[in-house]
């Protein structure tokens, strides 16, 4: 009951933002929603299935380029977003079949390297993607304020859909099976779970909304380049966000995203040339002194090891 009230309150607050704030705050809020989509998406594979995925940047960048190229070639904006999501999803399905048999560090690296490969590929495919010169996306012909609100509400809808899918999945056999896989994959297989399909599905789910958000992003900022959309931080930030509030809770990623971006903005406003360093300190602080925020990852095991 209480959580429902809180949820309602948050939604009302989010709906109020475009009415009471200026365009910059709306931009920040859009960014926050976008990152919460990343965080919720990561949660499918990272939180539910327990695979340390660093593939967010790959999905995001791929979606961004797919969407951008569609738009450059005259596909309507909203359709381009859907295509962006689908392209990432298909990619994730294939990639998942290839690398989800890897465990732990190996999987982490493989998922991390994929973004590097995609970046290099897109970088060198100058003819299609503009390579390092980036890609310009046609600007929407509408007023500044209207545009800000359009993008805000679009992102709001994407985030809501992501949340709904998360909620749906976690209450079904899929979510339950992923939980089993996280605990003990071999045993999960011997319990009758088709682990390959389950994991790959989770990986694909984590890609589809991220990819859609990528395409959205391309339309939103009107310019993308490989360095930017395949940036490693895009993979790391959602993880920190999820860890901040615990990987188990459904709205945890959303709150984590809000909290993290809020802190980041504060740091950034207050330290001109040292904000990156301060952000680093913040992460260190979180990891060292707030391990409880990280509790659902493997808290019990962690404590046990410390006691020993």
């Amino acid at each position, binding site marked *: 009951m209480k959580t429902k009230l809180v949820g309602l309150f948050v939604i009302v607050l989010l709906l109020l933002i475009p009415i009471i704030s200026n365009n910059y705050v709306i931009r920040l809020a859009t960014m926050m929603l976008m990152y919460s989509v990343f965080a919720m998406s990561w949660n499918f594979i990272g939180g539910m299935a327990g695979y340390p995925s660093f593939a967010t940047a790959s999905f995001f960048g791929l979606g961004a380029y797919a969407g951008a190229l569609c738009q450059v070639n005259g596909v309507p904006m909203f359709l381009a977003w859907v295509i962006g999501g689908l392209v990432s999803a298909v990619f994730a399905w294939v990639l998942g079949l290839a690398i989800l048999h890897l465990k732990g560090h190996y999987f982490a690296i493989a998922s991390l390297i994929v973004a590097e490969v995609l970046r290099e590929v897109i970088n060198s495919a100058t003819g299609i993607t503009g390579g390092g010169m980036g890609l310009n996306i046609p600007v929407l012909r509408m007023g500044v304020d209207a545009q800000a609100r359009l993008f805000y509400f679009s992102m709001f809808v994407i985030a809501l859909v992501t949340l709904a899918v998360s909620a749906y999945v976690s209450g079904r056999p899929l979510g339950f099976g992923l*939980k089993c896989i996280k605990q003990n994959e*071999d045993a999960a297989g*011997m*319990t*009758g*779970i*088709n682990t390959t399909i389950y994991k790959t599905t989770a990986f694909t789910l984590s890609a589809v909304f991220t990819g859609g958000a990528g395409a959205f992003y391309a339309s939103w900022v009107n310019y993308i380049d490989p360095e930017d959309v395949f940036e490693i931080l895009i993979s790391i930030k959602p993880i920190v966000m999820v860890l901040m509030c615990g990987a188990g809770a459904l709205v945890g990623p959303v709150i984590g995203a809000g909290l993290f971006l809020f802190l980041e903005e504060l740091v950034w406003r207050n330290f001109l040339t040292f904000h990156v360093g301060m952000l680093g300190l913040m992460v260190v602080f979180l990891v060292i002194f707030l391990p409880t925020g990280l509790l659902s990852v493997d808290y019990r095991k962690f404590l046990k090891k410390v006691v020993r």
Partner: protein
Amino acid sequence: MTALLQLKNVSRNFGGLAALSEVSFDVHPGEILGLIGPNGAGKTTLVNLVTGVYRPSSGQIIFEDKPINRLKSYAIARMGIARTFQVMQPFPEMTVVDNVAAGALFATGASTLEEAKELAQVHLEYVDLKKFANTPAASLTLPNRKRLELAKSLAMNPKLLLLDEVMAGINSVEIDQSLGLIKSLVEKGITILLIEHIMKVVMSVCSRVVVLHHGSLICEGQPNYVTSDPQVIKAYLGSKFAARQNRVSHEQ
């Protein structure tokens, strides 16, 4: 269809090391077959091969007249082979009932999560764990964990149950309780392959015993026949133990 499970010349190598070489035996429906052998003889490898964790390097594994050696573990589980684990518990941070529900949900195809959880309650009742239904599996004591393992396997509605050292680490009184439980399973029509160290257990419940040594099958037969086999005594039991074993059985 005489044998439920057949192993035909099954071998498995890890790198250059042969963990199992040319092992062949049958498990007949309705029996309790004991599998004994020293540590490192390949017992757990054998279980892993049957449940699809590994694939045999050569040879065939046949379950109900269908070869299963190329199937993945989930498919094998759905055909009706369940196992328990030697040391760990499958899903430590999930509740006891969820652990069992997982078996019911995925192997037998209970259509919803709710249905699976209801079914799980029934199995927990059977192994007398109902009072712990909502505690995390990791917090159970060792004997209770073994029971949980059993409940989970039963929830999968298996035809063949592989019990991997279910008695290790529990005391004699508890062992006696467990023996009763195992015997009652056979009455339910479940065939059991029992992997054990504790000779007492093997002697008292198994109808037949196979002995593995260095990855090869060295003896197969009735329990008493096996314990008196000179090769088994030399490789595994030791003369003193054999003497002690005889003494114990005399006292009984």
